[in-house]
């Protein structure tokens, strides 16, 4: 079988999963944050999945915590320096 292209309707689940969950991550200090939540996309993700469903499955909380932890780890070895070096 041939893979369905990302533009296909069937791929929309992957589209959301891939674009909001995966991909390289930049350090927290350089990245714009929303109300100190160190990721972008959380609200969008909640909106698209339906908050109730997400909460029901515990996915949102788990994911949110993981993202925070990830960002936090990144934050320590970080920068200001990107700005300062300029």
């Amino acid at each position, binding site marked *: *079988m*041939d*893979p*369905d*292209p*990302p*533009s*296909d309707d*069937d*791929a*929309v*689940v*992957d*589209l*959301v*999963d*891939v*674009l*909001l*969950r*995966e*991909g*390289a*991550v*930049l*350090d927290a*200090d*350089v*990245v*714009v944050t*929303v109300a100190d939540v160190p*990721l*972008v*996309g959380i*609200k*969008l*993700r909640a*909106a*698209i*999945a*339906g908050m109730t*469903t*997400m909460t029901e*499955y515990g*996915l949102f909380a788990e994911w949110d915590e993981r993202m925070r932890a*990830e960002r936090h*780890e*990144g934050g320590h*070895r*970080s*920068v200001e*320096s*990107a*700005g*300062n*070096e*300029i």
Partner: protein
Amino acid sequence: MSSDDSGGGDESASSTRNGRYLYCVVRRDDDAAASFDVSGVDGAPLTLVSAGGLSAVVHDRDEPYESDETTQVRDWLYDHQSAVERVGETFGTPVPFRFDTIVRGGDEAVRAWLDANAETLNEALTALDGRWEYRVEVEWDREALVDRLTEDDERLAELDDRLADASEGTAFLVEKQYDRRVSELVTERRRTRSASLDEELRRRTAEVVELGDAPQTPLTETPSGPTARFAVLADDDERDAVGSYLDTIADEDGASVRYTGPWPPYTFAPDACAPTGEDGPGPAE
């Protein structure tokens, strides 16, 4: 957008002015850059910010995109996706960034960041070169699975016999045991199926990541049966090999297969790009 603005001039910590929405990083190609004409989220014109042998694809944006409108969000995601796809067609496989990644400090900050992470980014681009991400999801039909398991399992056959002779009270207990045994068998079958899928995919591709069976985005129907999900990194030949393999499993235990791609290698991008570039984990493999 323009390279002539003052860039890193304003550096107050809370400032979100002079932001750059980051799509992906590619190998620098000044010829291709000269005729670069791609639009991004909401039709924003994209520009290339280059340092050394690398270019970042960006557009001017100070605030993250936010909306409660599902269709709006979906449109943005499609915009983002098709932009990265177009860039990839010209510049080769990119290192893709998560949706809504916005850097403050203008083009200068982006250049400084590219310099600091040149090694990690170059290694990643080399590892990803010529390959794209594909997603494989296999869902087994629970009913079909149960039918098959029921035929084969001695323990179930035995419980079945007991059930036939049982009084009402005993029948209740036996039925519970029966259901528990069925669940065990389904779980076990999913595990072995998933392990063999993993092995077969590994044999055919550069890299495989198991994504687990949780429905990550219940945007459409939640899988009802046992499910296994994978991301694989594959070139064109490997992609075809995976497709042929998936054909062979499509009917086993009522399996339905979803195969999508090519995606920019989101799952295989470096996890984090530290501004100092010291200890960012390299590209997978």
